[in-house]
């Protein structure tokens, strides 16, 4: 069920690099957890609506009004690499 291929696939989706050793280490742990989680299959939920959150509030809106923000420099200062008011990243377009 949870094999090497699955773990590598999930790691790629999650954008987390993973070595072969780590894959081997994770397989039994994730297998055990997912087997346990399969317990939920015992229940008949065919007539049950999902509950996505505990909040009872819905569609909380505010006025579409611009409120000034002076955060730009502070935000940029936390970035490892920045230039001219932009985040700097490796080239994405050839």
């Amino acid at each position, binding site marked *: 069920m949870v094999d090497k291929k*699955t*773990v590598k696939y*999930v*790691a790629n*989706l*999650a*954008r*987390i*690099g*993973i070595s072969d050793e780590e894959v081997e280490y*994770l397989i039994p*742990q*994730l297998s*055990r*957890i*997912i087997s*346990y*989680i*399969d*317990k*939920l*299959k*015992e*229940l008949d*939920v065919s007539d*049950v*609506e*999902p*509950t*996505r*959150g*505990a*909040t*009872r*509030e819905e569609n*909380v809106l*505010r006025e579409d009004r611009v409120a000034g923000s002076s*955060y730009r420099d*502070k*935000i940029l*200062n*936390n*970035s*490892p*690499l920045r230039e001219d008011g932009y*985040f700097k*990243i*490796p*080239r*994405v377009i050839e």
Partner: protein
Amino acid sequence: MRDDFSSFTGYDIARAIKNGDCSSEEICSFYLSRIKNIDSVLHSFVEVYHEPVGENGESSLSGVPIAIKDNICIEGRKITCASKILSSHISVYDATVIRKLKSAGLKIIGTTNMDEFAFGSSTENSCYGPTHNPWNTDCVPGGSSGGSAAAVAARLVPFALGSDTGGSIRQPASFCGVVGFKPTYGRVSRFGLVAFGSSLDQIGPITTNFVDCAHLLNIICGIDPYDSTSSRRPVPDFTRSLVPEIRGLKIGLPREYFGEGLDREVEGVLKEALMVFEKMGAEVYDVSLPHTEYAVAAYYIIAPSEASSNLQRFDGIKYGLRVASDDLLSLYKKTRDEGFGRESKRRIFLGTYSLSSGYYDAYYLRALKVRTLIKKDFDEVFKKVDVLFTPTSPVAAFKIGERIEDPLSMYLSDVYTISANLAGVCAVSFPCGFTKNGLPVGGQLIGRPFGEEDIIRAGFSFQTETDHHKRMPPLSLVTEEQKDKSWL
């Protein structure tokens, strides 16, 4: 003028300041000195603010120092979530709860250790190493708010804030012999709390007693335009529940919480605690929460799924750590591989798997439906009783290293706290006694949604008849030698 405030409650200290018996500066110095002398053994703090952060606000707790779990934003200060991936990040704004504490005149004296991104039940998953339980330093303080709980238990600070997603305030409070309160979902703004499970997270107080708890809740609760999940429900004055009167209070004991898996010694302590409630005139009823056995499974799909989404933002571009690479994909993968610890990766993988195409219906959607069933169990039970009394944890504090290699066993120990987050109800853990080895045992009161007043009243009443909450861990000032090994 007193020299030793460690047996004072936060509220006592506030009154002493108002009466002119001492100043806020003297109080902060007292606690900073205790931190300096004792915390090298406990490692409960990530950063200590030798110049406390605060403003001159007025409230029933003004001038009193407080510690903050290191996943809540304090403007201009480091926030790490105990993770390498954030270790150089400076908060750009104050969390709403921080603004409220500042307006109320409290003084923040530092940030506390935690499991990385709140993933864990032991505070062993911190990139800074574990926090030690002040009652037995070979033991964990619980998690993920272990630093806050340990600091309050050791009287390094009168109270602290933690966050609770599956029990992360209540379980460490139980392990450390203090009061840990999770408000109803929506009572306290999550703006400025680094999100783990957005439908589950709540910030709450960790204190030595219910008086401080009620005062702090008054300060931090309330609707917030910056958090659209915060509730419109008016916030009562919780201090009006500080009355030792529980005659006729209906207490339910859910049978699923007192069965197999509960340590016999812990059960014994809780049975004695129950007698205190009965003596004070509460009525005890046997009740059932039939879907309890599915709660851990539902949670460990929902919470990691939400976490996997919330942690996508840590990509090496906007925050802290970046591992330089030639292409963007490698940058993401290498940064996240190096920056996240083992438990964080496990949770992100579980969540990603549960949400992935082909598995979404079988896992995530199914778990949300089971969540409805769990919530309905609570709705039903609160038609019959006012509060529930349960264990907080199946065991008292375990040894550091004992469970860390077996994640499933760690997850299963969350069984009694997890349902309250899934259902969104309020719950509190409070000291009920000790094991024969001197480790604290916490009991839990669970209330209906927005039913904080009942559980505060029940807990306060309990504390007028008992003194477990006044016992302090047998800590003494550490030796000069130990002080040199300070890791801060």
